[in-house]
Structures are given as C-alpha cells and as structure tokens.
C-alpha cells in the first residue's frame, strides 16, 4: 500500500490528499444515497403531496438532466484544460457543495410541483458539475496503486453511515444529518479553494508524477503517447448493467414493506449494524480484489451475487413466507452493492490521464449510472401502471443479472480467444483517438 510508504517517508501533504479525497467523496456519496435518492421522494410524496408516480417521473428527470449536464461539463473541462488543474477543480467542488448546501437548506420551502421541478433542475446542475469535477481529483490525490483501497474506504464510510445512522427515512432526518456535515464542509472547502497553503501546491502538482498520472489501464503506444488498454464501451455496458440491475430491483424492494422493515429500515439497530458491517467488509474485499486481480473478475462476482440475491428474493416470494425475511438477502445485496461502488470510484480514473479524466468520468458515471437510473425508474413506473406482480418483477431483474453474468463469461472467453501473448488488442475508435491525442 502506497499510503504506508508515504507515512513512513513523512510525505504529509500526500497523506492529507488521501484524507481530503476520501472525506469529500464519501460525504458526496452519502448525500446522494440518502438525501437525493430517498429524502427527495419523501419530500415529494409526504410533504408536497404529489403522487408516487409523479415523484418517480421527477426523479427520472433528475437522472436525465444530471446525465446531460455531466457530459457537457466533462467535455468543457477537458477542452479548457481544467481537467488537469487541481485548483480549478477544488473551486468547482466548492461551488457545487455551496449550491447543494443552499438547496438542502431551502428544500422545506418547496411546496408545489413546479417549485419541486425547479429544485430538481438546480440539483441536477450541482450533481452534473460536481461529478466530473470531483472524480477528476483522483489523479491529483490518489496514486494508481491505492485507488482500490481509496474506493473501498469511500464506499465503506458512506454506506456504513447511511445504514447505521439513518434510523428514520424521512426528509427532515436526512436533511438535518447532512447539514451537520455540509455546512462545515463548505467552510473547509472555501479555505482550501482560496488559501495559499504550501501543501496544496504539492497536491496541485502530484498529477504530473507517473504514479498518479497514468491510470492502470493506460498504456504507452509506439509514438510515445498514451492509449487506453481496456475498451471504454465494454466497461460502460458492464457498469450500466450493474446499475440497471441494482436500481430496477431495489426500486421495487423499496415499495415492499416486508423487505424494508426487516432490513434497511429495521427498527432494530442490530440488523442495520449487520448490514452496515457487511457493506464495510465487502467494500474492503472489493478494494483488495480490484488492486490485485483483473477487474473482469469483480464484474463476474457482482453479476453473480446479484443473480443469487434476486433468486433468493424470488424464492422467498414464491414460498410465501409473509411475515419473515431472512437477513441473508439484504446482506447479499449489500455485498454486491459495495463491490460495484468500489469499481465506480476507481475504474474511471484508471482508464484516464489527467487530461482525459473529466470527460471519461463524466461519460462513465453519466452514461452508466444516471442513464441506468433514468431507464429503470421509467420502467418501474410503467410496470407499476401495469400492476406487474412483485415475483415477476424480481424474476425479470434476476434474469437480467444472470444474462449479464453469462455475457461477461462469454466476453472473457472470446477476449482470450482473440488475444494471444505478444499481440496488441484491437483498438476501438475511441482508443485510437486517445492514442492520437496522446
């Protein structure tokens, strides 16, 4: 682990960089999975009085707008060269956190559907700008070899806090919790963004060092430039699959009180603690596996676990155990979710250089994460209107997870068939562009 080496060397600015990145990303992700994904729904349904379908439609809008804004802003950052400028990214992050804090503060004032939509548009702006700005700081703050561990810490902290400290899934509760973190966060980010600390100068230049600059899947080509080893399209499809399977399944579980009240929303702290600890262990396992193994193994694990988990739910629904749900089901779910979240925090930086990170992260997170959320939400609304039974819903999700699992196996097999030692893999158009641009 590089962090241990930096501590032994007394390279404290770099160590502070780790803390800054993990703290910032964990807080951002916690905000996203609690306040945005759950709190907003509660605000819309319970406090404003909108129908569930209407709120789901607004959430789909949020996903679509965030996706578009992130893509546009990622492109702008790359074109203007902001992608490699740490100070600019820090200031952008400050703007985003400030906007999110204001939006969180004024959220109780939202009383109508139009005001809710306006709030959603502004939230999309913050998320869309924040995504490429914050993800691209990976190349400044976390060296290549420790990205798996950093992703693991972010995932572990965000999910543990979300699971253990969120005893009430109500808007007011999420709001007050996140404001305790966000207000000091804005002040801290403000100081970092504008003060002239020497350690910040060092952090701003770290992306020039090879251990930070080159992602794990970036290779040097014959002309001395860099190119991406892995196909971005392949990764996007796989990550899209994971997000899609997760959100399509979880959206329905959210509406099933038995599965929520015996697990994520349980009144018993022990149960929530068990899920939280599983998230932590799974995230740490994910970090280690990502560091030492081919990422394709992680994809296989994730799809496989999702397939088993949804099969468990399907079986449980079929045998009609109406008042009891085994804890193994949410624990397995937590396992899969933590593993893929680690991937999400690491993989985009590892297919990038400082120049391309903002665009790659935007494409990656927007096209896989937010577009999957948009499509799955839209589909869930449609299936609700059709009154699709819970068992059928979970069966479809399970089949999808299994198809992706199968697809990944086939993909690995054919990669092995066509790739022989000493041969270069065929490059995609995008990789070719990367190669030309150096």
């Amino acid at each position, binding site marked *: 682990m590089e962090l241990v080496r930096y501590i032994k060397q007394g390279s404290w600015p770099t160590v502070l960089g780790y803390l800054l990145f993990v703290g910032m990303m964990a807080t951002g992700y916690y905000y996203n999975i609690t306040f945005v994904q759950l709190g907003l729904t509660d605000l819309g349904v319970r406090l404003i009085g909108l129908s569930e379908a209407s709120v789901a439609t607004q959430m789909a809008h949020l996903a679509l707008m965030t996706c578009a804004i992130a893509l546009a802003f990622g492109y702008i950052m790359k074109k203007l060269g902001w992608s490699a400028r740490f100070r600019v990214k820090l200031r952008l992050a400050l703007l985003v956190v400030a906007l999110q804090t204001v939006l969180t503060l004024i959220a109780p004032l939202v009383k109508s559907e139009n005001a809710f939509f306006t709030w959603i548009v502004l939230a999309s702006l913050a998320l869309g700008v924040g995504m490429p700005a914050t993800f691209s700081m990976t190349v400044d703050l976390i060296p290549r070899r420790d990205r798996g561990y950093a992703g693991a810490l972010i995932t572990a902290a965000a999910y543990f806090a979300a699971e253990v400290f969120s005893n009430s899934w109500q808007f007011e509760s999420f709001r007050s919790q996140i404001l305790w973190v966000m207000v000091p966060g804005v002040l801290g980010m403000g100081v970092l963004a504008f003060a002239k600390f020497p350690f910040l100068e060092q952090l701003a230049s770290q992306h*020039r060092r090879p251990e930070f600059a080159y992602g794990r899947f970036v290779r040097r080509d014959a002309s001395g430039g860099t190119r991406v080893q892995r196909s971005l399209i392949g990764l996007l499809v796989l990550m899209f699959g994971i997000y899609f399977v997760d959100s399509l399944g979880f959206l329905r579980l959210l509406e099933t009180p038995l599965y929520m009240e015996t697990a994520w929303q349980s009144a018993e702290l022990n149960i929530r603690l068990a899920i939280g600890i599983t998230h932590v262990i799974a995230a740490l*396992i994910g970090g*280690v596996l990502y560091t*030492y193994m081919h990422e394709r193994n992680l994809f296989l694990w994730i799809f496989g676990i999702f397939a088993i988990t949804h099969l468990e739910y399907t079986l449980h629904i079929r045998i009609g*155990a109406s008042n009891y749900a085994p804890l193994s089901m949410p624990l*397995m779910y937590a396992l899969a979710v933590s593993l893929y979240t680690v991937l999400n925090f690491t993989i985009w930086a590892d297919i990038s250089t400082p120049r391309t990170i903002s665009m790659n992260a935007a494409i990656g997170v927007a096209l896989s994460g937010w577009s999957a959320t948009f499509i799955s939400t839209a589909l869930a609304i449609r299936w609700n209107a059709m009154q699709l039974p819970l068992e059928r819903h979970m069966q479809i999700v399970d*089949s999808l997870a299994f198809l992706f699992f*199968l697809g990944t196996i*086939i993909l690995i097999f054919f990669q092995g068939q066509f790739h022989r030692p000493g041969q270069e893999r065929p490059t995609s158009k995008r990789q070719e562009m990367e190669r030309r641009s150096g």
Partner: protein
Amino acid sequence: MKQHAAILLIFVAAFFLSACEMKDAYSGKVILSGEHILKPGETLDGELLVSGGQIDLKPGSRLNGSLYVLGGKVTAAGEISGDVTILLGELSLTPDALVRGSLSVGGGVLQRAPQAQILGGTITSAAGQIPDPQRRSTRSLANRLASILIESPILAALAYLAVHRFPRQIAHIEHTASKYTLLCGSLGLLTWFVGISLLVLMAFTILLIPVTLVGIGVLLLATAFGAIPFALILGRWTAQRLKWKLTRAGKAAAGMVLLVSIVELSQLIPWIGALPALALMMVGFGAVLLTRFGLRRYTPPEDTWESETESFA
C-alpha cells in the same frame, strides 16, 4: 481444455437461467419460522423442508412427499408417504406416526416412540453427522484434547499424502498464501459467504440437494487443502527449531498435528478464539482458488508504469 471449460460453464449457466421461468414443475413447502399445524384429515402435497420454526403433523394428517429436517422442531403423528431425513433440529415421531419410506438420521435430535412405524427401515450415518455449532463452542478441554488425539493423526496422514503426492500444487498454494495473504483472505471470505448462500438456496429447491451436497464437499475439500501449506510452514519452522530431520511430507504431518492442536485449544478463548482459525481457513481457501487447486502460479496483473520515472507532460 479452456474451450471445453467455457462451454460447460455456459451450459450450466443456461440451465440455471432456464430455471428462472420454472413454474409448478415441482412442488414443495419450506418452513423457515413460526408455528404451523397440519390438522387431522388435511393433506399436504409435495416435499416438506423445515429449517426453522415449528410444525406439528397431527394424527390423521398426511404428507404426500418426503420430510427434510434441517433445523427447527417437527412433531410427526400423521402419515408420511415418502422418506424422512434429519440433519439438524429436532424430530419427534409419536406412537401414531407412520413413515412409508425410510428414516435417515445424519444429525440433530431424534425422539422416536417405539410404536412409530418406519416401513422403509432406519439409516443412521455417523460419518454424515453435522456438528452443532453451539454444542461445539461449549466443549470442554477434555473433549478438545480427545478431538486432537482423534483428528490430528488422520489429518496429519492426509497432509503427508498431499505433500508427497502433489508437491508442486502445495508449493504454489503456499507461495500464493504467504505472498498475497490479504488477497487470499478476501477472496476466501467472499467465496465462502456467497458459496454458502448459494448452497442453502439450492438446498431449498429440494431438487438440487444432491448438487448442494457435492458443493459442500468441494468447499470443505478446498478449505482442507488450503490448510496443508500452513501445516507445512509450521512443521518446517518447528523442525528447524528442534533440529529434527524430516522430509517435506513429514514436516507437513508434524505441522498438521500442531495446527490442529492450536486451532482446537485457541477456541477455548471466548469470542476471539475462533478468529485466527477462521482467518487461516479463509487465506488457505483463497489461495486454493487463486491457484486453481495449486495447478498454476498466481500472478497479479502487471503494473506497466511501475518503472516509469518520467513526469507526465
């Protein structure tokens, strides 16, 4: 070989995928919790699997299928047309009970009234006894010493044979477990957790119980195989300290005796006593997986930028 393995994997996966649509091909009932009663005159069609809770099959009731007890408490006073199997939990066969198939006892607690009729006979398998984790954790020192005396020679002989017969495989596992300990432990833990969940899930389908048993066997075999390199390390260290002249296989056997003793005795420490043994098991199991039962050397993905010193422009 690789092609055959991939085709086999795809077939297996396609087989399971086809099961996603399976409906009413097989019927059965699973009891996980709560209290259930099959009243006199009532008939339950299909297999009955009990893994928790309580079920009372009253006199005059009929189960048209087999009964599997994997946990919980079953009181049978009615008629069971198939076989009865108990692995864990409690089964009480009252004087009115009539089992048309056989009774298999692999573990758990069985109370059988002498008047209860078992038409297919009774099979008791001591080898198939599943240890009760609660009973195991409260075993006394004398029990543990007895276990060491019985288990360690058998395991030492197995370790001797394994190192003698598969020296390269054991060397690969040892190298991987000692060099990539964290990775092995992580992979081992993940595979155990997911593997057990999958096996339990398969057991609930009843149809796949044979596959489950094979799976449990493979899991235990891999875990045991993964422990041998640790026995070898321990045996080597001990032989060096005590200046014993032993062969490699002999060191593994001596190490296994020590390892079994340490693992058994460490469990006398409450709460944390089992943790070192668990960690060791997971690391060894992970190493077996990474090296595919020691058939290959594990090499992590290369870091092509490792030797790069030039700054990024």
